[in-house]
Each structure stands twice: as C-alpha cells, then as structure tokens.
C-alpha cells in the first residue's frame, strides 16, 4: 500500500507526472509536426509527380508534333498528297506513320473531309470526327489532343500540309497504352492508369497497377470523375492517394495517378517509433532518476526519523551521523547536539530526582526503586532482605538550637558514616529530614541486627562540628523480606512502625512484629472514625478532681478525653492520641477539648461552682502559633476568666522544639492562662528550660507517685522534686495517688495537690458534679480520711469499672 502522505511517494509522483507530461507533450508535438510534414511531403511529391506527368505529356505531344511536322513537310509526301490519288496517299501516310510509330495517320483536306485514313483504307471521304482539332490547328498552326477515335483513346496531333500554303492536314494518332503509362511511372514515381468512359461505363485500359488493384480503382471512377482532383483511397494493400487528371478537352478520358501513402509515410513511422522508444526510455530514466533523488532526500530523513525515535525512547547512546554538507547534514548535526544535550540534562534531572543533594545519597524515589529490585533479586535467590528505617534522636534540638548549618553538617556526616558501612549490594538512602533507610541483603536476622548495632555504635561517636562534639543517637526499625512483607510499601511501612517502637522503647533498634501492625492498622481506619466521632459527638470529657492536700478541698480538676465508640466501646486515648498527633488531627481534637472544657467551666460557673480545669495540650499544639488567639477567643465567648483554664504540657512536648514552644507558652501565660508541666520526671528536660518556662505548676509523674509509700529512693526523688518545684515557685501536683498511705505521705512531704483514684477516678460531668456535691459539701476534705466512695458517688464509680481500669494518660 502506497502512502501518499509520504514525502518520498509525493516527490516521486510529482516528478514522474511532470516528466511524463513533458514527454507526452513533446512526443505529441513532434508526432503531429512530423506527421503534417510527412503529409505535406506526400502532397509535394504528389504535386511534383503530377507536374512531371503533365510536362511529360506535353513534351511527348511536342515531340510527336515535331515528328508529324517533319512528316508533313516531306516534299515527296507533299508530292504524294498533291497527286490526289487516295491509294497513294494512304500508302504514303502509312509509310510515314510507321516511321514515327504512329498508330494511325489521317489526311484531312481543307474542307475537313477525311481523305485518307490508315485505319480505314479505301473509305469514301467523310467529315473528320474531331473538327475542333482541325479548327484549333488552323488557328494555331497545329494542335494536339487526347480523344477517342475509332473507339480508341489516342493522342492526336494535327499538323498542316503546306505547299507552301496549307493544302490540308495530317492527323497523327499515338496510343495511350501501357508503354506510355510505364514511361510516365518511371518519370513521376506514381502509378499511372488510363481510363475512359463509354456509354456511362468506365474502363481502365492501361495501368501500371497490379491486376488486383484494377477493380478497386475502376469502381471509384464514376464518382471520382465527377470531381477531378486528389482523393484518398483505401486499397487492399493500404491507403493510397489518388489524383484524377483529365486528358484532352473532354472528361471521358482520365489519367489516374496514385501512390500508396504507407510507403510515403514509412519514414514518418520510423521516426515516430524512434521517438516513442526514446520517449519511453527517457521517461524510464527520469522515473529512475527521480526515485533516486527522492530516495537521496528521504532516506536521510528516515534515518533522522529513526534517530528521533531512539532519542524519544531514551536511547542516547547512538550518534546521529549523516555525512552531508547540505541542510540535512546540518539538521543531523543539530539533532546530534540536541541528543547529547538531552542526555546530559536527563542525567542531571535524574540525579536531582533520585539523589539527595545534601548527602549525595539516593533519595526516597531511588530507594524505592532499589528496594523493588532488591525484592526481585531476593525472591529469585530466596534470600532475606532487610529494610532499615532510622531517624536521629535529638536532631531537631541540634537543628533548632545550633542552626541549620550544623544540622546539615550532622546529616552529611551521618550519611558519610552510613555509606562507609554500606555493603556491596546494600543501599543507603536519605528519605527526608533526619530519616535514613538502608537496604541490607542478609542470610539471617541476627546478621541484620548486628548491622543495626554497628550503625548505632557508629552514630554514638560524637560528630565534631568546629571543635564541638555533638551527640546524636538513632533509632532503627527493621523489617525483613519476605517475613514482614512481600512488597516494598508494606516493608517500608513496617520498618517505620518498628522504628517508632524502637524510639518509644528507647532500645535503639526494633525488629517489626505483627502486633505493632494491628494498632497501626487501627490508626488508619481510626482517622475516618475519629473525624466521625468529632462530628457526631462521640467524644466526652471526663473530669478528675485535684485535691488540695492542706485544705482537703477541691478547687481544680483535670479534663480527660474519652471516646465512646459505638462498636469498640470506650477507646483509650493512648490508642488514638499518638495517631492524631501523627496525622495533624490533634489540632482539631485540641480545639474540641478546649471548647468543651471552657463550655463546662462556664456551665459550672453558672451553677455556682468555680473550678479550674486542666486540659492536656500536645507538643504539636505548641507549634501552632494561633493557639493563644484561639483560646483567648474561646474564653471571651464563654466569658470565662483565663485563670480558670490550665494547660498541661509534657516535658517532651516542648523539648522537641523548645524555642518555639517557649514563645507560644509565654504568649499563653501573658493571656493569664495557668500552665502546668505534666509527667515531670520521665523526660530528659533540661533544668535550664524548666527555669525558663512560665509554668505555675508541676505534676510529678505517676510512675514515681503510685509506689512512693514504703520506697525510700522514690520518696527522696518525690521529696526533692517537690522541693525543686517549690524553689522554682511552682505548685506541685502528685498524680496517681492510689491509697491513703500515699496520700498521707505526700501531704507530709509538703506536696500541694493530689490527684488519683484514691480520691476519684475521672468522671463524666454530671457524676463529677454529683461527686462534688455529695462527697464534699462546701468543697472541703475535712480530714486525711480515706477517700472511700461516698454513698452517692458509689454508683457512679461502679458505673465506670472499665474507665477505672484504664490508666489515665498524661
């Protein structure tokens, strides 16, 4: 199938059509010119032949006239004529006629009487049948004609007999015969036929034509004789050109001159055939030439096209090379430059896309690819493949306190150390931030753990920056292929989970276990459900009273978040708060909690119960610079004094980003909010930060308080912590007070406030109100009495056995 859109085909078709047109036109013109020339030549030749014919006839006639003249002038002949003896005369005529090969000779006297006739000897004198011949001879001194005499077509010559004046006429008759016709044919080159008419019938009586042609010519004569001139005649052996020439004064004797056109056209045919052959040859050459030209143009274009296709397909290896000095060569050269340019740029883009510019380690994308490949390889070789995900402990602190330059230096150094430890087939990548990942081909999980330990050890060596040692540790999560996942996504996620476990457990490393994943899986579905919970009011705030140890009164409580899940029942905060923090949803939760708490404060105030409510604030919340304004607006909306709202922040909360946290906390303090340091003693909080915090309260972690009675070292920690808090100007709250011994001890140690199941578990607002009213009318604990359930609060406690079993978070 020819594609007419193809440049080559279009060029070839155009050139061939053009050349073909030219050839055809040229042939047509030449053919027509040579044809008309040939026809003209035939006409010319024919005319020449005809003129020659006429001239020969005339000359013949003149020659005969002269011969007749000589005859008539012969004295003896005249003498014989003068004798008046017919016999003598006839014999003389016959004798003279024989001398000049005459067919017949007649003597006619001045009266026009035939006196003697060699064809009819002895006849009586009778008038001459052709008096006009004599009349013409009389006026012109002689005459000749061609006419019928004695039923024969004859050339007749009449000359006077003079003695010395004209005394009579002799008429000499010569035949029109084959001899004459052949003579004429020889001289004119035309076929000559003589024909005569008698009684309406034409008869061809002498002809040079072959016998077969006679009939054809003869059949034409009746029509043709009507109009003398040139005619064409189709003869059995081809077309002939004919001309009828009248002989004599009357039209009953004609000469037919003819020649075959074919023979005259033979030269033309040869020329035409030569032209045709030449035309076809030159057309063939033109076609071949145009195809070659088209190919010479389109072939390099096709090569260029192929090169473009290669480049499009990402194959930059092959050079685009067409050694030509024309535009195509230049185009090929340009394309080659483009090829190298694209290749370089692609290399650069790939580097940008797959390499971390800071550490020059592969980035997350390349790690994903390497992981995919590693999985394929491991699957084939049935080996294990370990994926380690790690991040740096305290990196944020370094970055924030010492600047990004130092952070970058740390990352570069960590990258360098990891690279040094990278095995032959392994891969080290920086996933982003302070998060790194390693791919370790391994035979056993123990060897992987060994690698993890070596990494931890390597990173424990302080990184020196401008002479200062920086201490960064790491937590590594390990997931194994195929044990912990078949695909890269699962493996990375599981390693990530393991890393969080390691971080939380401060073990340095953790190998993924299935049960890590369940909580993680729950988290995923939790997000949607949590959103649903907020929107459908499934969240509740429970309140746990804070008992003033000196006065035994309750002037404050802590709001604790509960989720009454329609299917799961009560979901503990530990199951969704870390997740909410992780996803950023904590912001919504915090706002909800704050709104609910402020609303509750306002409600209690309306009921005449002025209580300070503590709300736990996530470390993430402290990064939210809008928080102070939002709280201010809430308080204003519910007309609640800021002093009734207390925000509890864990040590680790602000240690992640102390500078920012302190800024926000200071703003909150400025508004008049109470700030409390939660879970004190569990983190790594620096005392200098503690000093700088605008907090008015410190809560000792339950891990110290719940077992404090009877434990000397815990007692001294608690005692000195209380001392520290008081020295820093803060009130000290003990959490997790579970028995009367503890309660008494804390009061003795000078602790300001106690909170715990010993007094009350967290209660829903209504129960909390009831507890307040029933347990302590006037809000007062009169004595360090065992805080057993009051008659009215007992049902409340028994209603929430599950709640009581769940340790309060934060």
């Amino acid at each position: 199938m020819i594609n007419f859109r193809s440049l080559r085909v279009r060029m070839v078709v155009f050139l061939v059509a053009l050349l073909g047109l030219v050839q055809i036109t040229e042939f047509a013109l030449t053919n027509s010119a040579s044809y008309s020339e040939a026809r003209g030549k035939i006409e010319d030749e024919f005319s020449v032949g005809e003129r020659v014919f006429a001239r020969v006839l005339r000359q013949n006639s003149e020659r005969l006239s002269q011969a007749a003249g000589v005859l008539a002038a012969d004295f003896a002949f005249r003498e014989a004529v003068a004798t008046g003896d017919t016999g003598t005369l006839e014999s003389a005529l016959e004798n003279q006629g024989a001398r000049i090969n005459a067919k017949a000779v007649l003597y006619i006297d001045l009266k026009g009487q035939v006196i003697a006739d060699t064809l009819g000897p002895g006849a009586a004198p009778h008038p001459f049948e052709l008096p006009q011949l004599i009349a013409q001879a009389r006026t012109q001194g002689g005459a000749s004609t061609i006419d019928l005499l004695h039923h024969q077509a004859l050339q007749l010559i009449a000359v006077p007999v003079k003695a010395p004046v004209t005394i009579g006429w002799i008429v000499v008759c010569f035949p029109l015969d084959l001899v004459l016709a052949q003579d004429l044919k020889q001289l004119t080159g035309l076929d000559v036929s003589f024909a005569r008419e008698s009684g309406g019938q034409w008869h061809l009586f002498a002809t040079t034509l072959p016998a077969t042609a006679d009939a054809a010519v003869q059949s034409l004569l009746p029509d043709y004789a009507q109009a003398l001139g040139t005619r064409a005649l189709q003869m059995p052996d081809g077309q002939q050109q004919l001309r009828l020439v009248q002989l004599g004064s009357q039209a009953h004797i004609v000469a037919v001159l003819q020649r075959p056109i074919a023979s005259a056209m033979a030269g033309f045919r040869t020329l035409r055939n030569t032209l045709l052959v030449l035309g076809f040859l030159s057309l063939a050459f033109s076609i071949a030439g145009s195809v070659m030209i088209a190919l010479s143009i389109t072939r390099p274009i096709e090569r260029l096209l192929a090169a473009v296709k290669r480049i499009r397909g990402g194959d930059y290896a092959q050079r685009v090379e067409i050694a030509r000095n024309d535009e195509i060569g230049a185009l090929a050269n340009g394309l080659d430059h483009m090829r190298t340019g694209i290749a370089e740029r692609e290399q650069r883009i790939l580097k940008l896309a797959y390499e971390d510019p800071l550490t020059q380690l592969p980035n997350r994308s390349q790690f994903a690819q390497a992981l995919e490949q590693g999985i394929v390889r491991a699957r084939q070789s049935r080996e294990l493949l370990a994926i380690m995900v790690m991040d740096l402990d305290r990196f944020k602190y370094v970055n924030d306190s010492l600047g990004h330059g130092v952070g970058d230096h740390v990352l570069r150094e960590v990258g360098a150390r990891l690279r040094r430890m990278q095995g032959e087939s392994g891969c080290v990548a920086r996933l982003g931030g302070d998060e790194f990942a390693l791919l370790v081909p391994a035979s056993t999980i123990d060897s992987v753990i060994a690698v993890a330990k070596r990494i931890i050890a390597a990173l424990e060596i302080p990184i020196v920056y401008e002479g200062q040692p920086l201490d960064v540790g790491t937590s590594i999560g390990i997931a194994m292929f195929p044990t912990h996942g078949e695909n890269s996504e699962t493996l990375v996620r599981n390693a990530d989970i393991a890393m969080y476990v390691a971080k939380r457990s401060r073990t340095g490393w953790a190998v993924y276990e299935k049960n890590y994943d369940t909580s993680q899986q729950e988290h995923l579905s939790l997000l949607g459900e949590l959103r649903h919970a907020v929107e459908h009011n499934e969240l509740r705030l429970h309140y746990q009273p804070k008992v003033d140890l000196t006065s035994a009164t309750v002037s404050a409580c802590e709001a604790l978040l509960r989720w009454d899940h329609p299917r799961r029942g009560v979901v503990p905060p530990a199951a969704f708060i870390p997740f909410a923090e992780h996803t950023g949803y904590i912001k919504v939760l915090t706002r909800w909690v704050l709104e609910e708490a402020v609303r509750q404060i306002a409600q209690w105030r309306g009921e005449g119960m002025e209580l300070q409510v503590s709300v736990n604030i996530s470390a993430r919340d402290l990064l939210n610079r809008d928080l102070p304004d939002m709280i201010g607006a809430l308080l204003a909306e519910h007309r609640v004094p800021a002093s009734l709202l207390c925000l509890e922040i864990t040590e680790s909360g602000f240690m992640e980003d102390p500078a920012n946290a302190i800024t926000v906390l200071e703003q909150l303090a400025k508004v008049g909010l109470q700030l409390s340091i939660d879970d004190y003693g569990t983190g790594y909080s620096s005392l200098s930060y503690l000093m700088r915090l605008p907090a008015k309260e410190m809560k000792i972690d339950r891990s110290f308080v719940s077992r404090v009675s009877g434990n000397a070292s815990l007692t001294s920690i608690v005692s000195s912590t209380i001392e520290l808090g008081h020295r820093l100007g803060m009130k000290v709250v003990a959490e997790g007070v579970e028995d009367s011994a503890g309660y008494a001890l804390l009061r003795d140690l000078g602790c300001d406030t106690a909170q715990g199941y010993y007094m009350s578990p967290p209660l829903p607002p209504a129960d909390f109100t009831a507890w307040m009213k029933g347990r302590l009318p006037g809000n007062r604990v009169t004595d360090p009495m065992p805080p057993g359930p009051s008659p009215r609060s007992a049902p409340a406690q028994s209603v929430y056995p599950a709640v009581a079993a769940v340790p309060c978070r934060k």
Partner: protein
Amino acid sequence: MNDRPTMLWPAVALVCLPGWALAADLSVRVQSAAGIPLEDAIVYAVPNVPARAAQGAKYVIDQINRTFVPRVNVVQSGTAVSFPNSDNIRHSVYSFSPAKKFALKLYAGRLTDPVLFDRSGLVVLGCNIHDVMVAWLMVVDTPYFAHSDRVGIALLARLPSGDYTLHTWHAPMTEDQERSEPLHVDAGAAGVTHTVHIDVPVDPTPVSVPPP
C-alpha cells in the same frame, strides 16, 4: 513592288487594242467585307466569248532575299514565266497546284528555262528548301486583269463592250474562294466604277503546335 506591273501596262494595252474598236475603262474598288480597301488584289474579267490565248508572252518572277518578287502575280494563260534567282543561294521553285505542277531543281542565277503556264488557275509557288517563300500566280484566260492599288482600286482599261465574268481574288485565298460575278461592259459608259467585297482569310502562320 508595284513598279513592274505598272511598267507592263503599255504592253498589255498594245496587245488588246487592235481587236476592239469600242472599249470602256472599268475601275474596280476592292474592299474587305468590312469595307477596308484591299491592296494588291487581282481583278480580272473573263469575256464570255473566249479570248485568244497569249502567244509568246513572257513574265518574270524573281527571287530576292528569299522572297518571290513580286509575290502576287497575274498572267494570261500561255505566258512563259521565268524564275531568275537573284540570291546568292540556291532555290528550288515548285508548284503542286493543279493548274500547273512543276519543280525546278536547285539552281542559281538566271539559267533556268521559263515555265509555260498554259492552263488558267491559281498556282501557288514555293521553294522546296525555304518554306517561308511563297508566291501566287493567277493564270487567267483573259487579257483584262489588274492589281488593286494602295487605295484598293484596280483599273481594267479599254474593256470592249460585252459580257464578262468578273473575278476578284486576293492572297492567300484559294481558287475556290475567288469571287466571281457577271459583268456587262457598255462601251459608251465612261469611268464606270464597280465595287467588290471579298473575304480574305489570314494565311496560316508557320506550324507551331500548342500544348494539349
């Protein structure tokens, strides 16, 4: 050309006079059919009573510059005509006319014998070797004959009274074409003029055959 015949007039007259006491002159005006006067026509009157033939009469037709001189002649029968040759070439005079057939072999000078013309009739003379030479000799049986002059008048003098046949001829008419008419001459009438109209054919020019 007319000199010689005029010179002969006295001789003829002398011959005629003794036989006729009463005579009249007749002027014949010769004209063509169109009325144009014809010169050198021969007019002669033949009396119904036969006249005596001329005896011993002589006549000369010379050949000068390949021309018979004179070209047109009339003699009474019985006249001997001599054909001297004044050219320095030879001539061969002949006649095939029925009135007198003769042929003089090639000759030069004046050495030939005269030819006697004893029968009346027109004799056409030619030269056998010079076809262009032609002369006419009218032989008449009467002494009364004359040539018309430049104005076409031929004078037949002293015609005795009587009946005649008047013949008028002009070259190159044939004998048959000669005009003849009866004529009565009355001696008393003086200065009679008779007018004759004749049709003179043109002498055919030398042979030349036109193309067919």
